[in-house]
């Protein structure tokens, strides 16, 4: 028998946890609406947007390049090996191409950028919250959502698809290196890719990343603005962003794929 008091405490904890989650979800939705609205108000932050695109997009090039190169290499290595067992080695290009364009490119890029950029956004805005800089923006009659959230949302949403296209290309080139080693000619490799990967495949892969980017930015900003409790709070918020952003990417990927498969 568990004493009743203990049960009550547990129930209360579950209840308050659930309420907390709901509140966060509510805040998240509210933030999305407000961010959307702030885009149409005076003082659109053009400069800040460019700065953010630089910091989100351009500075992610290296990490995206390395990730996709090695993904392509490993993927091709495994594929060549497995397919050889079935005597289907010539299909290496098709498989590598499809895997990268449909899933590996978009999702890995989103996860890497989500970790790097999401954590960065939460740490930066979270610190601004605890040092009253966000309050200072409000006190000056400006809108922190328009000044801070909107530029980051736009920057991540627009950069991620471009980074994904880059990742697709580098990943496929990585696969080519392995294919060449295994006696598949460059010409044949690309031919198999172009004959099996359709434009729709490519578009549906890239289209998903608009949603991923938007999700990552909004999760990061929403966590950041909810930061409480000094620098420790910033740490917690940052961790939460990395976890929630990655999970949201994976979950939304499933549903987006389902939807895209039916409509394309």
């Amino acid at each position, binding site marked *: 028998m568990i004493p009743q008091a203990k049960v009550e405490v547990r129930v209360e904890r579950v209840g308050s946890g659930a309420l907390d989650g709901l509140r966060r979800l509510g805040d998240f939705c509210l933030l999305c609406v407000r961010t959307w609205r702030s885009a149409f108000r005076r003082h659109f932050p053009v400069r800040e947007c460019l700065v953010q695109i630089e910091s989100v997009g351009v500075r992610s090039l290296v990490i995206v390049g390395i990730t996709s190169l090695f993904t392509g290499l490993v993927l091709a290595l495994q594929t060549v090996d497995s397919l050889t067992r079935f005597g289907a080695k010539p299909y290496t290009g098709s498989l590598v191409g499809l895997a990268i364009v449909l899933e590996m490119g978009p999702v890995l890029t989103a996860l890497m950028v989500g970790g790097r950029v999401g954590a960065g956004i939460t740490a930066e805005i979270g610190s601004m919250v605890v040092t009253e800089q966000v*309050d200072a923006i*409000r*006190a*000056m009659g400006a809108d922190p959502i328009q000044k801070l959230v909107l530029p980051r949302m736009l920057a991540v949403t627009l950069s991620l698809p471009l980074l994904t296209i880059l990742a697709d290309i580098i990943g496929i080139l990585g696969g080519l290196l392995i294919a060449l080693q295994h006696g598949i000619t460059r010409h044949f490799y690309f031919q198999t890719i172009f004959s099996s990967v359709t434009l729709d495949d490519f578009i549906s892969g890239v289209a998903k990343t608009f949603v991923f980017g938007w999700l990552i930015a909004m999760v990061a900003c929403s966590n950041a603005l909810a930061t409480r409790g000094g620098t420790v709070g910033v740490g917690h918020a940052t961790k939460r962003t990395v976890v929630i952003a990655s999970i949201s990417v994976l979950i939304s990927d499933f549903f987006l794929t389902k939807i895209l498969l039916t409509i394309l």
Partner: protein
Amino acid sequence: MSDLANDVPAIEMHKVCKAFGRKTVLLNLDLAIRSGETYAILGGSGSGKSVCLKHMNGLLRPDSGHVRIDGVDITHLSESALIDVRKSCGMLFQSGALFDSLSVFENVAYPLREHLKLSKAELAERVKECLAAVGLSSSQSLMPSELSGGMRKRVGLARVIALQPKTILYDEPTTGLDPGNSRRIGKLIRSLQERLRVTSVVVTHDLELCFAIADRIGLLKDGAMVSSGSVGEMRDSTHPVVRAFLRGDQDASLDEIESS
């Protein structure tokens, strides 16, 4: 006093209550600040002075009660409706709250860029004036991380006066400053009030500053104003808490009095 008693107060707080979680910070706080006066809020550390100040421009909203600015109830105004209130009401934060990512110049220019359409030269001119007023003309291009605590506070003040607000809320303007700069800030606050009829609310521990610049003083304790009056009245006050505070044995003795 030229202000008539029936004038609408510049800032009025009526039965304001505010709690964070289970911790009650303000409890039925009543306060009226006349237009053009300098009102000093005294109180022990953690007594809720900063929280009180943040209600005056809508950064915090009361759990119950009302805050009126020039007679307009701002308690339930939306953030966008508060913009006009905030444009004419500058706030100096206790920590300075400078933007870390922007240089001193850009920090001071921030509200100007936001609300005024100035040419580059005008902007630079205005920023220079404001920095000169706080004695920091030579630090324009530094980043906030390169400044001392006192310098940050002064840059914060420069940023506040940049828009020439009608009302200024100062949260401990002289804490962490050397005596010379303290006096300079005191003079600045006074001259803003005299030249531009700025309504000032000054939260401070600095009694010297308080007596030098304030028209009226309020003492905050246990979430409400325990006493409020002109500098003279407060000096002659027989209220034990006020006397203890003005004697300079602040928090410790306040608690002693309470327990005795």
